[in-house]
């Protein structure tokens, strides 16, 4: 019976295999390029003639670790601060009734539709002017970039977290409040531990989102020593495919691997966050 079933499924398996070939086509060629002696695109074969790790040892020389360092500073700070600020706000929206709540939520709902990139001209000029008074928040600073990411992520993440907080029953906090805990203690001792999954979703989304952002980083960071991975990699390879392909491939793989592993190992968590609305019906 089982065997029969498998035979029936052979066409399906074949189709899926064809799609997998399409899916892994660029991945396979990149892995091959990173291991192949010689730097360019010319004459590359899927199985390299001569295997070498030289492209990986070149990573330091091309500035790769500096890009990654900058990217990690920006992405980690953004993720942590986003969770901190947003969880506070989401808690208030979930637990209290107060003046201005309805219109604040409505405003957030509308604002979350606007990606930050649409205000890019204004963001650029704003940082340009701020930088004249507060140098560490101006153009060409990582902290300025972090601020822009932080501000842009607020509306969407408040809604996401509020939805989760709503599903935690009030009764747990109420008993704590009766025992003499303050509201704030109830928030960080009871709600936050229970909300770990959604905190993780927001942190990971912010982390991956900022790590992958090219546009804002490219207009704010001008000095090569400040480049994040996205900006650095792009400027490194742009127009240089014929000579830098091998080093580029190695950098791509090392730079992408942590994100891919993070994403795949937490796929259920991340996917449920990103496809919010579809699955819950």
């Amino acid at each position, binding site marked *: 019976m089982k065997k029969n079933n498998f035979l029936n499924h052979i066409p399906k398996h074949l189709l899926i295999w064809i799609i997998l070939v399409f899916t892994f086509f660029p991945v396979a060629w990149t892995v091959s390029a990173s291991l192949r002696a010689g730097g360019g695109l010319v004459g590359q074969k899927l199985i390299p003639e001569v295997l070498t790790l030289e492209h990986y040892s070149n990573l330091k020389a091309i500035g790769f670790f500096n890009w990654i360092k900058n990217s990690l500073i920006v992405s980690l700070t953004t993720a942590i601060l986003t969770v901190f600020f947003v969880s506070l706000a989401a808690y*208030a929206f979930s637990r209290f009734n107060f003046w201005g709540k309805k219109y604040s939520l409505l405003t957030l709902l509308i604002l979350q539709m606007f990606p930050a*990139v649409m205000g890019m*001209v204004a963001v650029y000029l704003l940082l340009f002017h701020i930088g004249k008074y507060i140098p560490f928040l101006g153009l060409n600073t990582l902290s300025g970039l972090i601020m822009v990411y932080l501000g842009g992520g607020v*509306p969407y993440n408040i809604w996401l977290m509020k939805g989760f907080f709503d599903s935690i029953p009030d009764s747990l906090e109420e008993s704590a409040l009766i025992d003499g805990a303050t509201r704030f203690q109830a928030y960080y001792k009871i709600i936050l531990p229970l909300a770990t999954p959604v905190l993780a979703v927001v942190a990971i989304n912010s982390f991956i989102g900022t790590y992958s952002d090219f546009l804002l980083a490219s207009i704010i960071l001008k000095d090569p020593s400040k480049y994040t991975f996205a900006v650095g990699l792009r400027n490194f390879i742009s127009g240089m495919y014929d000579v830098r392909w091998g080093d580029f491939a190695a950098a791509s793989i090392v730079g992408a691997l942590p994100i891919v592993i993070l994403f795949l190992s937490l796929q259920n968590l991340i996917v449920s966050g990103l496809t919010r609305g579809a699955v819950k019906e």
Partner: protein
Amino acid sequence: MNLLMPFLPIIYAGIIVAIGTFFSYILSIIAGFVWGLIFFLVVFLFALLIVHPKSYPWRYIVPSFLLMFMFMIYPIIYTIQIAFTNYGTGHILTKTQVIEQLEKETFLPENTQNFEYEIYKAKTGEILLLFRDKSKNIYKIEDKKLIKIGEGDFPKEYSNYKIVPQTKKYGEISKLQNIKIELENDTFLQMSDLNTFSIYRQRYKYISTEDVLIDNLTGEKLIPKNGFFVRPNGQEILPGFVTNVGIENFIRLFKDERVSKPFLRVFIWNVLWATLTTFINFAFGLFLALLMNDKNLEFKGIYRTLLIVPWAIPSFISLLIWVGLLNTEVGVVNRILLSIFGVKIPWFLETKWARLALFVVNLWLGYPYAMTVCLGSLQSIPEELYEAAKVDGASYFQQLKTITLPLLLTAIGPLIVGTFAFNFNNFNVIYLLTGGKPPMADVSSVAGTTDILISYTYKLAFEGGRGQDYGLAATISIIVFLIVALLSLLNFWISGMFKQEVRYE
């Protein structure tokens, strides 16, 4: 600590006010006093909400909202402001700054007075200049006046300054070249050649009551117009300044051929792009989801994980890789096509191929999301419906048409609209894969035939070959705003219609 507790809200409010006031101050400089004031009032309101016990919950909200106001809402407002100005290359400074700069310019009038000079140095290193006119009167300068201190030859010493000998004099001259000694009546003493200082006059003088700039050299009145001071004969004085130009940028978008032609093409392609790529991705995603939605399929979990790999790789990396693979001369894709079909495709050189490349690569990037969404939704369709349909003798395709598709589209409708909005502004794919290329053949513009509005905006603002045009870029951003807002409304409408339970409370 307990003693401090009652004051904590006040300290907290104080910090917020301090940050907010500082930012208001900056805004008032950038955007004008009114915006600074508005922002200050918002901050003040926040502080009140923090202090007042009844609005206690705001203590949790204010930090997020302050960030959002500064780095999200304000840029939106600022974008709208910029759209009504000529901000851009040649018009970077404010009018006040331009006037300040122009008023520094001087000129050498006819029949000016010339002076010889000597340099004197004190032991402390301070420098003094003495001047001698044609009738051998010697002067020093004090309080913007020439004061006569003697006649005949220059003295060897004056108070505690000693004359710098001729041999060393010319070594000091480089320091003197930029010296501008202010005298009365808008005149200045400046070096006119190695041995001479002359009386210069201020070239431009701004008269604020009439809002004109007087050119003292020609005697003309210069009137501010379109961001320049303009001479009566129409000549514009550089630099220009930022000024309100009303709806001129919008008019340019629709009336000025050099702008409207590329804009219209970019717009049409943008709509076409978002529609088609969303459709292709969801069609393919649904097809895959139908393949995978089979409880008995072997390796289902592994397949699913492998198939979402493109979603897991940061898109800028995969896009840059695709650019290499699609390289026309030496790219892998063309080498394979050449060996099998004997053709070489100019991927980024011809519009139709560049567009095809975009659709294919965005399918690679986007199908995992579409598949996941469809799969989740398929699994939530109750099994009984299919069983009932089977009893009624419905075929697979009849079931698909009457049960699966309607239920699926109801559930994922808002997400499809969301994906459309995302692709409408999918800067990364366009900019990193084709960079908007190839260029438009018959119009000279920064826009290429695969540019979408957002990448066009980026190019106008940050890499225009003919300089930056922030005003026009902001105007196009507003158009994008409007379209996204429209899509959001559509989305509310769809989700409201099908769900009835969006919670605001």
